[in-house]
């Protein structure tokens, strides 16, 4: 861990992992959009409103609303897996 400066990198050399972004869709027509509610108050209201607009104005075929177990905890792997199979685009909301 020591470098040529003579001291140790306390981050353990972290921050090198790179995650590639998923390809961006050029339009939303005919797509299935997933909406992820963080469970804070009014998050559902915000997402339902967005979902409606996406269907009316951008031709989204279907909207799927899912919620995390708790706003302060990450979405579970199973929820992420489920959404990644069902939707082409996902939107997360923070209520409050």
């Amino acid at each position, binding site marked *: 861990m020591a470098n040529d*400066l003579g*001291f*140790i990198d306390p981050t*353990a050399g*972290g921050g090198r992992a790179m995650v590639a972004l998923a390809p961006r869709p050029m339009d939303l027509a005919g797509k299935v959009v997933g909406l992820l509610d963080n469970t804070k*108050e009014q998050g559902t209201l915000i997402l339902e409103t967005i979902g409606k607009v996406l269907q009316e104005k951008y031709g989204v075929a279907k909207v799927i609303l899912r919620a995390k177990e708790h706003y*302060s*905890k990450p979405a579970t792997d199973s929820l992420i897996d489920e959404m990644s199979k069902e939707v082409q685009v996902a939107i997360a909301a923070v209520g409050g």
Partner: protein
Amino acid sequence: MTEAVDEFEFFLNKQWSDGFPVVTPTEARLETMLKGTRCDPDEVIGSIPPAMEKATVRTVAIHALMAGCKPEYLPAVLGGINLMLREEFNMNGVQGTMHGVAPLMIVNGPYAKKIGIHGENGCFGPSFRANATIGRAIRLMMLNLGGGIAGIGSATIFSTPLRYTACITENTTQSPWETLAVSKGYLDTDNVITCAMVESPRLCFDDVSQEPDRLLNGIADSMVAMGSWNMHARSDMVVAMGPQHATICSKAGMSRADVHARLCKIAGRKVRDLKNGGNWRRERALGFPIKVNPDDDDFFIPAIKEADDLQLMVAGGWGPCTAVCHGWSGGSKAVHGKYEI
């Protein structure tokens, strides 16, 4: 060390610090620090969210030495971070939250006394190396390994001075009662850490009350602010009674458990009152783990929803004051356990 590099500036520019200079971690200093534990340096303690870099005995030791710890403090730092990574403590949520709480370590047992963790005059403040550096080591890991840096991995609005350090013990010299750890079923000879996610202490000064009823009314009032998450969620709270206040209760025949029960009972506000300000939302109240009627203006909402959420201890110097640390909304449960020395 090359001449061109000032290591103090280097660490500050890298944001590998809490804003103060750190002790430069070198292999020689690390070797000395690791003498403070019998653990294998490669042993993995866990990953610190949200960045999820690994805390190993070695990386914990690096941060302990950066923080200014003596090698003999290392077991307490290892014990603390080990507990804090338990799922129910929800470190991930606290790292990201808008709120400003910190994991307060309350260290009980003979080893805390041996290494000089301080629980008497000025225990929440400066001048005590073990308190200052053990808590700082935890914070440096939350920054460097966890990425909980304000504006980057943390959305905190104000943060809190407790995020520089948050490590104390109890005033066992002047306390009339058993320790917090013993109240949880441990032995006096056990080395135990309790951690709770709390705000900075709010001081309840009362140099008037000479009997428990009036005294505890005043302390209970400090527990029930409208803007406190304790009134609007299930949340931990630390009440550190000054030994003088604790002695008033003790001399009147109250045990620690009696005072705990009384505060759980009387610290609260009616719905009518809570509606007038702060974080009140009907749907929040319906999410409590206790049954409430948010539509009844006379319904009493307690600050402590579950009795084990109140960490009642005795700390500070002799004088008419008690410290109250409010909790966080995001579902963190205090954790406690023995640590290896």
